[in-house]
């Protein structure tokens, strides 16, 4: 009974509202007397604000106008480092930086007004790429343009070079990538000195916004309330930037004394909000004659944009994944997040890992070729096995079987036969076919001591009618939070799926179960829900109201009796690290994650050497994510992540000009469509994880890591060109093909 809901593809909890159009997203909500808000932004990447001029044609006395001077508390968006202003006051550090806010009841007039504001900027020199930032001729942030730096050290790298049969070097890079959730960002706020501040909106992390609003308004926490509306996708893009939008909507509402709705259109969302950090990675690797890794030296750099935001944490995850699922006795990693005058880059599914894993997997192919081994054989000789240690010295206690997963992925994709056949058929053919793979891991939950610091809390409560309500701030953003938390609560308590309700994330009503990020919702929050549900059961049993085995009807009667005698029936659970997990923040060593998900992905491509277009024609994704709670949702996570990875590899190219994205439209920023996605075969190998709910681990970010290196490897296999960076757009491929065939 207890587990009968686990491993079952029950329909999505809020699915009915979504397929009927009844689900209420932020732009679907309307408040009486509501004004609309807009943001006036910096036209320049860096400079001093000389003047703000208001065009004569607009009836300005009808407008609410907010500048930095109107901020009641501190002018910053509180996150990790308090360097990012809510509204720029005297200087701007990136194009599209918010400077001024306007509100009016007529949104058409509002748009004219926005265009009638002129912000005069005296330009200052700016930095637009990693190398210029590292060079340090111009300092735009702190003492050296470096937001954060990590060093990981294992063994003795310097001593290993002399023993190596081969030393392989390479440099790899990845571009910015837009999250492109189909629902743009938006918030509605009601605010005033009496009632405090309440915001509704599209978001991943209600308590991040709560923290930011407390700071901007200088109010105590009980005066701030943040409520999630149905959210149309996040992928990290609604992790930190919604704090900015919530603050803006609330500042306008505070001054206007009316509700204010602030919704971005697509162009504004793409130009102004965060993207995946561009990266540059250098590898230097010592390999023995028999193809064993002897030493790895990695220099990993990400472009953080103009403010610190989450870059230090993105860098941390990228760093820890930089040496991948390989056993190497000597590893040295230097990683840096540097400042440029681009809008801050931020969270995007994978969070630094897709960048460092792209570099590593490309480099592993190179190293294999250098030592004269097939790429799969080279991986096989170096995979982490149970008992081995990662780059940070984490001993792998899981029963991981990467060689087995590699074999399975190659078998499922018919890798060897296809590789042979393509090589034969490609001769004299304008369309070249190729096949490639990537093997990788992804840590679930916050990095290092992150989960201990978060100390998340989730709860369940039961009503007299036997309805169980899950209390957590973890948001449903499409990934299935509502459904899996329901399955876990219902499965633990032995009640029907329909008897469990998810309480809308609202900081006024739910405890802080931490942000909805880092593949942590199922594994970490799910475990808290499981444990809170067990607590509830124990409470009923301890009161003598529930026998060890019971029917749902008996559960309901027990709840009713308990509530009649003792009042509310609630149970909370707080995070405790699994036994034996230790992380040293100083040395950057130890158990980086409670658990890893493991995977091998195989991509097959066609490259048309006339049009220089590459297409993915087949895809196999084999992974181990612990026990699968909901196979339909889990496969949906993998397929969706693979699609975004295909975008990262081939299509999604942010074009920058003076630190500003110039292709901020769906017309010219291309994501995969229904005709661009190949058949995707998803295979789960299930190995229950002892400390996850019902054995589950994290899954959400994993599928973002593998596609780009697998596709790049396949393109290389098809054409013989060296592909060290993505996206591999037709323009890039044309240049490379011209070189190769010249």
């Amino acid at each position, binding site marked *: 009974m207890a587990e009968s809901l686990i491993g079952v593809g029950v329909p999505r909890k809020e699915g009915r509202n979504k397929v009927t159009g009844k*689900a209420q997203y932020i732009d679907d909500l309307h408040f009486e007397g509501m004004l609309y808000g807009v943001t006036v932004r910096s036209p320049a990447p860096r400079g001093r604000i000389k003047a703000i001029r208001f065009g004569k044609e607009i009836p300005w006395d009808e407008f609410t106008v907010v500048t930095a001077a109107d901020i009641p508390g501190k002018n910053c968006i509180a996150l990790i480092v308090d360097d990012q202003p809510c509204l720029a006051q005297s200087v701007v550090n990136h194009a599209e930086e918010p400077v001024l806010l306007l509100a009016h009841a007529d949104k058409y007039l509002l748009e004219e007004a926005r265009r009638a504001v002129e912000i005069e900027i005296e330009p200052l020199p700016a930095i637009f790429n990693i190398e210029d930032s590292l060079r340090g001729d111009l300092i735009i942030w702190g003492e050296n343009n470096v937001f954060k730096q990590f060093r990981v050290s294992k063994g003795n790298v310097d001593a290993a070079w002399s023993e190596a049969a081969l030393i392989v070097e390479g440099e790899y890079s990845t571009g910015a990538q837009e999250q492109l959730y189909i629902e743009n960002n938006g918030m509605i706020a009601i605010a005033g000195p009496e009632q405090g501040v309440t915001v509704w909106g599209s978001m991943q992390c209600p308590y991040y916004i709560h923290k930011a609003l407390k700071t901007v308004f200088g109010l105590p926490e009980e005066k701030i309330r943040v409520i999630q509306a149905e959210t149309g996708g996040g992928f990290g893009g609604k992790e930190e930037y919604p704090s900015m939008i919530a603050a803006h909507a609330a500042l306008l509402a505070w001054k206007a004394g009316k509700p204010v709705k602030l919704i971005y259109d697509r162009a504004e969302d793409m130009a102004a909000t965060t993207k995946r950090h561009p990266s540059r990675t250098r590898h230097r690797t010592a390999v023995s004659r028999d193809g064993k890794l002897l030493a790895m030296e990695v220099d990993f750099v990400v472009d953080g944009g103009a403010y610190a935001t989450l870059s230090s944490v993105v860098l941390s995850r990228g760093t820890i994944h930089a040496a991948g699922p390989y056993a190497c006795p000597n590893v040295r990693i230097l990683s840096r997040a540097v400042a440029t005058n681009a809008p801050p880059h931020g969270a995007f599914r994978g969070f630094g890992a897709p960048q460092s894993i792209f570099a590593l997997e490309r480099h592993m192919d190179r190293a294999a070729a250098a030592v004269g081994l097939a790429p799969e054989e080279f991986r096989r000789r170096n995979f982490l096995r149970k008992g081995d240690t990662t780059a940070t010295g984490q001993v792998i206690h899981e029963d991981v079987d990467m060689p087995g997963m590699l074999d399975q992925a190659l078998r499922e994709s018919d890798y060897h036969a296809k590789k042979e056949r393509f090589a034969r058929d490609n001769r004299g053919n304008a369309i070249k076919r190729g096949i490639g793979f990537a093997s990788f891991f992804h840590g679930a939950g916050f990095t290092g001591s992150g989960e201990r610091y978060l100390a998340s809390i989730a709860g369940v409560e039961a009503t007299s009618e036997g309805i169980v309500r899950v209390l957590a701030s973890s948001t449903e953003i499409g990934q299935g939070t509502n459904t899996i938390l329901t399955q876990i609560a219902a499965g633990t308590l032995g009640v029907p799926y329909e008897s469990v309700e998810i309480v809308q994330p609202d900081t006024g009503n739910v405890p802080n179960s931490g942000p909805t990020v880092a593949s942590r919702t199922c594994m970490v929050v799910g475990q808290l829900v499981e444990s809170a549900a067990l607590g509830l059961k124990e409470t009923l049993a301890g009161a003598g109201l529930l026998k060890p085995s019971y029917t749902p009807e008996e559960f309901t009667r027990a709840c009713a009796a308990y509530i009649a005698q003792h009042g509310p029936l609630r149970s909370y659970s707080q995070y405790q690290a699994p036994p034996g997990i230790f992380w040293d923040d100083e040395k950057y060593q130890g158990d980086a994650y409670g658990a890893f998900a493991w995977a091998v992905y195989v991509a097959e491509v066609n490259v048309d050497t006339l049009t220089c277009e590459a297409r993915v024609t087949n895809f196999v994704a084999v992974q181990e994510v612990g026990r699968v709670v909901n196979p339909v949702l889990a496969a949906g996570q993998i397929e969706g992540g693979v699609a975004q990875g295909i975008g990262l590899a081939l299509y999604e190219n942010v074009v920058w000009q003076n630190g500003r994205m110039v292709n901020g439209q769906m017309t010219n920023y291309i994501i995969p469509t229904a005709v661009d996605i190949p058949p995707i075969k998803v295979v789960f190998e299930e190995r229950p994880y002892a400390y996850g709910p019902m054995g589950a681990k994290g899954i959400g970010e994993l599928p973002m890591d593998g596609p780009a290196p697998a596709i790049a490897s396949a393109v290389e296999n098809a054409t013989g060109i060296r592909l060290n960076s993505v996206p591999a757009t037709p323009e890039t491929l044309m240049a490379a093909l011209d070189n190769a065939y010249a």
Partner: protein
Amino acid sequence: MPKAAINITVNGAARSVSVWPMARLLDVIREELGLTGTKEGCGEGECGACAILLDGRLTNSCLVPALQADGAAITTIEGIARGEKLAPIQQAFLECGGAQCGICTPGMIMAAVSLLAENAKPSEAEIRNALAGNLCRCTGYMRIFEAVSRASRPEGPQR
């Protein structure tokens, strides 16, 4: 230019609304008619989140001036279920996992409805082509194809 009165049949019911002639049909549907199931994703006809049927034809409502819809019959996502009973395509989206965040779902379902009205048994290639004007960022499309295919099969949900 003054506001104009236009008559539209909306999900089978006659409605008369006063609109700015060049207002986007999308805004009229959402704000004047109060049907917020139709979504805006891009405002330039790329993503298909605002798709409706305009006189039976699949149309991105963000690209249509309201005046052009005068006298037309439109169907939106709110007109697909029969009362509380989901249409087979909605049921199939639910069962197959065709909806994740749900923001593209109304437009995606309208595109599927349009396809199935013209082609009761589409092949996978026909499904892919018919949905190529609707962007989804969550699913990788696989489960959407499966949903459309399931809705088109007799052994699928009852029709």
